[in-house]
């Protein structure tokens, strides 16, 4: 259970980055760290001690497999994490081109 607690501590570090930091890039890094910690948590749930990779092969007839269901859920979540991070970075580029700073206190003017 210590492993679960450490995983959630990584999540809290990412949350600290999102809430406290003023630089936009640090906020994006914090969000990405939160996504990684949740993918790790899902993969940790399915682990069986002494299990092997969930692939049927000729010589291993009866053996204990690691749970394949959380792995199937995390497989697509990793690629989607990259896509959302890229979307956030595109918004960050547009903000920099307009305001010439990444500070979130300066970018408050809402009209064009």
């Amino acid at each position: 259970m210590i492993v679960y607690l450490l995983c959630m501590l990584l999540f809290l570090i990412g949350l600290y980055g999102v809430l406290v930091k003023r630089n936009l890039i640090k906020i994006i890094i914090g969000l990405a760290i939160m996504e990684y910690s949740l993918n790790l948590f899902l993969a940790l749930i399915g682990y069986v001690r002494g299990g092997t990779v969930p692939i049927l092969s000729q010589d291993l007839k009866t053996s204990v497999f690691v749970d394949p269901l959380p792995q199937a859920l995390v497989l697509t979540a990793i690629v989607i994490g990259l896509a959302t991070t890229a979307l956030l970075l595109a918004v960050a580029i547009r903000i920099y081109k307009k305001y010439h700073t990444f500070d979130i206190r300066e970018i408050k003017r809402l009209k064009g």
Partner: protein
Amino acid sequence: MKGITVIVRKVSQLLAGVVFLYGIYIIVHGHLTPGGGFAGGAVISGAFVLVILSFGSEIQKLNKSETRSSLLESTGILLFLLIAAAGFFLGSAFFFNFLPKGTVGKLLSAGFIPLFNIAVGIEVAAGLLTIFLALLIYKDEEDR
């Protein structure tokens, strides 16, 4: 010393060919070994990213546009939907596995899973390449 020399460029072009072949191997053997469509698509996009990065500081001279890779991505997801709908049009349910299943462990087995792997591989590779090109070769609209 002027940055990226011609040795680096030629070696990365050769290596990109090997990485591309490895990506195709991961996609096609997706139902036998670890990997599948998502992993193989990511590796293929890594090969293209390697070639583009080997241009170094002359990257602004390329007029690489993202139109063709965006077209490939749309083709990939359309192929995915067509294979899924083919089960519906052949009289059974949507997503029904209509190809023969074969024996476990051979290359031609597992129904339509190899076709799905190829469609998802094309879509993921083209999607990641489009993201990379759009963020790297970003020109302000006043410069166009």
